[in-house]
């Protein structure tokens, strides 16, 4: 009976509600979970501009028109709440605090990857569910199921992994940890492997020039890693991993409440070891370098639940890599008589400090983000030594202010400072330099309604070597109906090319490096547009995304392996260089709990090398990806399968008549498959999987492997997998508070 009454009321409701008002009171959860009236909360009907704000006692009254039934409560520092309003009874609404200033909260339920429709910047969020899909030993391996990011080895001996976003090398994507630039400079080549997978809570990948708040560096995009927070639910997490190739790994983290929820601390540990020498392709070279890594991190969080929050952390990492010929031993004298070897020893100390304050009315927020890193590398590649250290400090002070109570106009402004000192030494040439870059920025966000967002930012930086330069960037998002979201962006980006250190893996070849400037500034424009369509097909969401990004370089470091038979030439661009990337992807659930992702991307990357505009070598012309993910009801089992179709591309060959050791000029398309099965239990889960299931390998990744000291030796012409099929098994254990 009551049901019918409600139903009746509901049916009649639009008619009688013409002049109806909804009133109520908004509360915020306080320190001990108690309710406190919350003034200044923006309350509006979804998809409209009709809004009011709650008064000093948290009370509000809002007119309700026909068809309006979703009421939205939004307030800085609190999670936005949507409510279905039925009837005219006064409402009591409690908002949950969300004090993660300057941090993107990951909205995710079952889907591992989430493409935001609200963010003006084209962003893909990779959450914990997605991170569980792959073995996920470190950041570099987290992108296997992601269509936007490519991961490849940069050479056949050091194990350095490269990512490509929009088909552009990883150096053009700004890497961040917790919204602070990190893993740059000397950490560029191996940085992705310094972030253990189990430490991560989520990853955000945004394409195109990012917000100016984080600096001038992002050109192709930005990859941000969020670590697990000390005040997470998770009390203890342990992970062990072993591969058939002899890689063993341990990860653990624990959270402790030092003083309730006010002061919390987390300790992270990682140790891994690979001591087994494998040579499956019988070229005499170790397939994957031997490696010992120890990595520890301790972080602290303070939250007074009255608007102030601070976090700090310090970590240390030690890594030892050994590659080269099977018979090489570290203590051998390095002469042409002995086997060829590569050794890279790295010590890295890093720390961060950040704090934020949100004013009681929630309209003003101040945040300080700072980090430092000391990085030291001692290495040799055959007979060549490379030693370097880097000391870096970064600070960014951001003031965010809502210009009106509805948060329709927001200004983000602030100042930043970078101090980066390098000492490098190659072929006994010492290279020392210091970069000092103070900067100012301002960014205006206009969000008149739920459909439209405009974000325009500009920054000026004052570089001690390259002078003053200006970085303008613009993003726009328009959702012209429930189903269609359109985005465009344009922006400039700069970065310092560390000519020697970021190409140091090229030493694994017979030709010496030849360069004129130790460092110079790269400069590029990026333009992008994307279109997301959402449909409901047979009661399930279907998302189709199409995007195009175009990057044009004004200044760039070009690696020329083709002009000279004597040297690899590292020189500034002289001519045109651009990269176009067209991508389509589709996400759907054809069967309940089976997520299907289909993606296809075409890369068009051209560079002027040695005076001729050519296709960038060692880059696939296209990439197709199919990812299937199935979980049983209640998620007790998870099956994951990914297949990547990589297009062919160009192999750089020296264009001289001495074409004796010159191989083919093209590589063929190839396919790589990964699969994993996870079984979940209450406190732990176990996973078994395989990378490169079909075992596809690039033939002869090392050119003239028999004569590593000869004039044709080259281990850097790598375009495909060096390792064959890898089988692994792992175990995760977790305990919540």
């Amino acid at each position: 009976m009551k049901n019918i009454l409600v139903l009746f009321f509901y049916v009649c409701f639009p008619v009688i509600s013409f002049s109806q008002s909804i009133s109520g009171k908004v509360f915020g959860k306080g320190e001990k979970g108690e309710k406190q009236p919350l003034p200044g909360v923006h309350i509006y009907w979804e998809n409209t501009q009709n809004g009011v704000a709650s008064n000093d006692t948290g009370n509000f009254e809002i007119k309700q028109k026909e068809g309006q039934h979703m009421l939205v409560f939004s307030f800085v520092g609190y999670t936005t709440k949507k409510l279905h309003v039925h009837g005219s009874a006064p409402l009591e609404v409690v908002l949950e605090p969300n004090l993660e200033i300057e941090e993107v909260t990951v909205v995710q339920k079952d889907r591992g990857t989430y493409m935001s429709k609200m963010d003006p910047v084209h962003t893909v969020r990779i959450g914990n569910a997605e991170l569980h899909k792959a073995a996920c030993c470190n950041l570099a391996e987290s992108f296997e199921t992601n269509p936007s990011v490519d991961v490849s080895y940069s050479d056949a001996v050091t194990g350095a992994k490269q990512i490509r976003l929009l088909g552009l090398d990883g150096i053009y994507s700004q890497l961040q940890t917790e919204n602070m630039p990190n893993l740059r400079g000397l950490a560029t080549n191996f940085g992705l492997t310094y972030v253990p997978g189990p430490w991560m809570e989520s990853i955000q990948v945004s394409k195109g020039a990012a917000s100016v708040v984080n600096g001038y560096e992002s050109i192709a995009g930005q990859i941000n890693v969020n670590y697990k927070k000390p005040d997470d639910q998770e009390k203890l997490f342990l992970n062990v991993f072993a591969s058939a190739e002899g890689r063993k790994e341990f990860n653990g983290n624990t959270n402790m409440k030092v003083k309730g929820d006010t002061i919390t601390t987390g300790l992270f540990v990682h140790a891994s070891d690979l001591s087994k020498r494998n040579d499956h392709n019988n070229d005499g070279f170790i397939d994957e370098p031997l490696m010992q890594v120890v990595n520890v991190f301790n972080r602290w969080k303070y939250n007074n639940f009255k608007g102030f929050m601070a976090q700090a952390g310090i970590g240390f990492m030690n890594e030892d890599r050994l590659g080269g010929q099977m018979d090489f031993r570290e203590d051998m004298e390095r002469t042409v008589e002995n086997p060829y070897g590569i050794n890279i020893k790295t010590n890295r100390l890093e720390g961060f400090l950040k704090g934020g304050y949100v004013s009681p009315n929630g309209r003003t927020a101040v945040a300080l983000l700072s980090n430092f890193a000391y990085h030291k590398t001692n290495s040799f590649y055959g007979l060549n030594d490379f030693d370097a250290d880097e000391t870096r400090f970064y600070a960014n002070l951001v003031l965010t202010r809502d210009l009106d109570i509805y948060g329709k106009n927001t200004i983000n402004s602030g100042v930043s400072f970078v101090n980066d000192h390098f000492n490098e030494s190659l072929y006994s040439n010492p290279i020392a330099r210091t970069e000092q870059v103070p900067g100012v920025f301002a960014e205006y966000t206009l969000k008149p309604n739920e459909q439209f967002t405009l974000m325009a930012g500009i920054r000026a930086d004052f570089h001690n070597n390259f002078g003053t330069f200006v970085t303008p960037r613009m993003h726009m998002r328009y959702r012209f109906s429930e189903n269609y979201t359109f985005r465009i962006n344009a922006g400039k980006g700069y970065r310092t090319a560390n000519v020697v250190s970021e190409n140091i893996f090229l030493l694994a070849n017979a030709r010496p490096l030849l360069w004129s400037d130790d460092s110079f500034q790269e400069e590029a424009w990026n333009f992008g547009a994307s279109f997301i369509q959402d449909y409901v097909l047979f009661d399930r969401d279907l998302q189709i995304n199409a995007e195009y990004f175009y990057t044009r370089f004004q200044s760039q470091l070009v690696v020329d392996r083709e002009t000279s038979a004597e040297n690899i030439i590292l020189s500034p661009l002289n001519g045109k260089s651009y990269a176009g990337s067209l991508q389509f992807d589709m996400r759907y659930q054809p069967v309940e709990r089976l997520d299907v992702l289909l993606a296809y991307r075409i890369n068009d990357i051209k560079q002027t090398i040695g005076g001729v505009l050519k296709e960038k070598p060692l880059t696939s012309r296209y990439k197709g990806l199919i990812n299937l993910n199935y979980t049983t009801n209640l998620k007790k089992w998870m099956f994951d399968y990914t297949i990547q179709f990589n297009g062919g591309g160009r192999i750089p060959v020296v264009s001289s008549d001495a074409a004796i050791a010159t191989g083919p000029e093209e590589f063929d398309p190839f396919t790589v498959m990964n699969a994993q099965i996870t079984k979940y239990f209450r406190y732990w889960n176990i996973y078994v999987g395989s990378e490169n299931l079909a075992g596809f390998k690039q033939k002869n990744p090392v050119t003239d492997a028999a004569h590593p000291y000869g004039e044709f030796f080259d281990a850097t012409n790598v375009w495909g997998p060096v390792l064959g099929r890898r089988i692994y098994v792992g175990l995760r254990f977790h305990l919540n508070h």
Partner: protein
Amino acid sequence: MKKLILMALVIFLGATVNSTFAQKETKVVCFKSSMDCENCQKTLTEHLRFEKGVKDLKVDFNTNTIFLEYKTGKNNDEAIAKSIEKKGYKAEKISEDEYHALVDNQEVKKE
């Protein structure tokens, strides 16, 4: 290569079919509980989905209800109620009709 793709597909389909048809005799039990936030819903879901024999589960904090289907040989109503109470929530047994009344009522309101 083709074989491997096929193999992977078979594993997938196998898993799908398995979960759809391999059900034995099951029983449904419903409770009224005392959750007051979305976090409680999450905690209870995480807790209950790994109870012995659980086949289906719906925890909802809006209506404060729990719907649970389990294999009869593996568990019983009392043990499940105890398990809910152990986590600090009430577990007042209600009939399936009462459960549907509560949930449907909520759904009408929502629409």
